[in-house]
């Protein structure tokens, strides 16, 4: 099998003394959507944060386009082309939408207008509200700002931690549509999701984690059809 574009392989570690991840592997191919699902406390967010370098691993590696980035700080990984959207507190609330996007592109010294236009194409409502203070937007719109901010670095991989947490179903559908569009533009997506069914629906690859270890790994469609997966995690 060809080396995936981004892979966190056999990751073992946690935040302190106790390990949360046990030999966990998640990966995503170029331009594809990989989704991590599982019950509460399964270590989904932890796995993604490990790939991003927000906790140190006792064992395992993370490689991006073949390069070992296990020991890079999160900021360094951003410079390498990774982008991360946290679940909470993922915008600058007292700054305008436009300023949020500008801050997203802080590391870039070149002209960012074009990228900002692309973000506005993807999220038209942000164009309308570009001068509005981000903290005053609705939950779904704030998520769009958060994702837009992450896209400003023109990343190769976009990592999303439960992007639809706390939004209404209609907004969730819209967000998923956007995520598919982003993937179609060539950016790989690695996503942790609580709404397993909808997420697996759009996923090229799905990772079901239980207690920090891989339980099921397959394409999204296969997992959706698998009776055992359905019974355990998708409510039949």
């Amino acid at each position, binding site marked *: 099998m060809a080396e995936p574009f981004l892979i966190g392989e056999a990751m073992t570690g946690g935040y302190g003394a106790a390990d949360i991840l046990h030999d966990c592997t998640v990966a995503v191919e170029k331009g594809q959507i990989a989704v991590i699902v599982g019950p509460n406390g399964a270590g989904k967010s932890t796995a993604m944060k490990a790939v991003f370098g927000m906790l140190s691993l006792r064992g395992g590696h993370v490689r991006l386009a073949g390069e070992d980035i296990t020991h890079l700080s*999160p*900021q360094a990984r*951003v*410079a390498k082309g990774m982008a*991360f959207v*946290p679940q909470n*507190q*993922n*915008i*600058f*609330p*007292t*700054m305008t939408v436009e*300023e949020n996007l*500008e*801050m*997203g592109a*802080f*590391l870039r010294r070149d002209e960012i207008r074009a990228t900002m236009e692309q973000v506005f194409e993807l999220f038209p409502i942000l164009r309308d509200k570009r001068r509005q203070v981000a903290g005053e937007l609705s939950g779904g719109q704030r998520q769009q700002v958060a994702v837009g*901010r992450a896209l400003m670095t023109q990343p190769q991989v976009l990592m999303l931690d439960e992007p639809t947490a706390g939004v209404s179903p209609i907004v969730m559908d819209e967000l998923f549509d956007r995520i598919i569009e982003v993937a179609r533009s060539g950016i790989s997506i690695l996503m942790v999701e609580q709404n397993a069914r909808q997420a697996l629906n759009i996923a090229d690859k799905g990772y079901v984690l239980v207690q920090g270890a891989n339980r099921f790994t397959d394409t999204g469609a296969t997992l959706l059809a698998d009776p055992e997966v359905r019974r355990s995690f998708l409510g039949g």
Partner: protein
Amino acid sequence: MDILNALVVFLNFVFVPGLAYGAQLALGALGVTLVYAILRFSNFAHGDTMAFGTMATILVTWAMQSAGISFGVLPTALLALPFGIAATALFVLATDRVVYRFYRHQKVAPTIMVIVSLGVMFVMNGLTRFIIGVGEQNFADGGRFLITAAEFKTATGLTEGLAVKITQALTLAVAVVVVALLFWFLQKTRTGKSMRAFSDNEDLALLSGINPDRVVAVTWVLAAALATTAGVLYGLDKSFKPFTYFQLLLPIFAAAIVGGLGSPIGAIAGGFVIAFSEVTVTYAWKKVVGYLVPDSMAPDALLQLMSTDYKFAVSFSILILVLLFMPTGLFKGKSV
């Protein structure tokens, strides 16, 4: 009913002094609020930073005066101000490097940072007294009055005169310029925006590649500049005594908190709220009321709500009321 004379008395004894004092407090509160927004602690050494900065400016002023440099009708201290700011900024950056940085990297509780700032306060206070002594220093030169009371009376023919000191007008002018510059910096420049982002959401700012050391350094430089300017303006207007600046700490904190700790606009609004409250509550309204009511009802008593010695009791009471009932302040700064 002599409204014009009443108005002139009001302007002369309440409004103009209140404006000047408010501008000075606003500048001081801006420094405190900036440090709070970015470094996330209440800097008890800010008053003595003002004293240190004013001292440095005074020394340069003296050097300039003995070298024959003057600024015409404006105080020479204005020319010396940039040097004073530079010296204070250097000192404050050194303090950060030697003292605060250690605790920041350890992510200690804000209370500990405040106690550390107490130590820095001692050192700055001691250094200032060591270098310039405890005596009162008058370093204002140049013209004294923009309009004297006599000139005003002659011009308008009123009984009451309105005197505007050059230092008062200067305070307002400088304050306006400084605030405009500060807001331009925070709203329009990349560094300024990165500071606002850092204050808003530190983790996300770090993720975006914003350099924390740079943000911290710029914050200290701005705080030093604001403190020095506020201190010099206050010292020009009244006089310089190292001890007075520690006493200003309370109204300055009151102003910052009333406006909303962490909000620059709040600091400015708070500065004027506190200043005008102090002045109006401790002013003897007898004269003004005398002009406004019929002679038969003219008051005998001074009509002074509180004696001037209780000035800061006023700012303190407002502070307590705000802390108890509206802790995020007028402009919703960072909450309690």
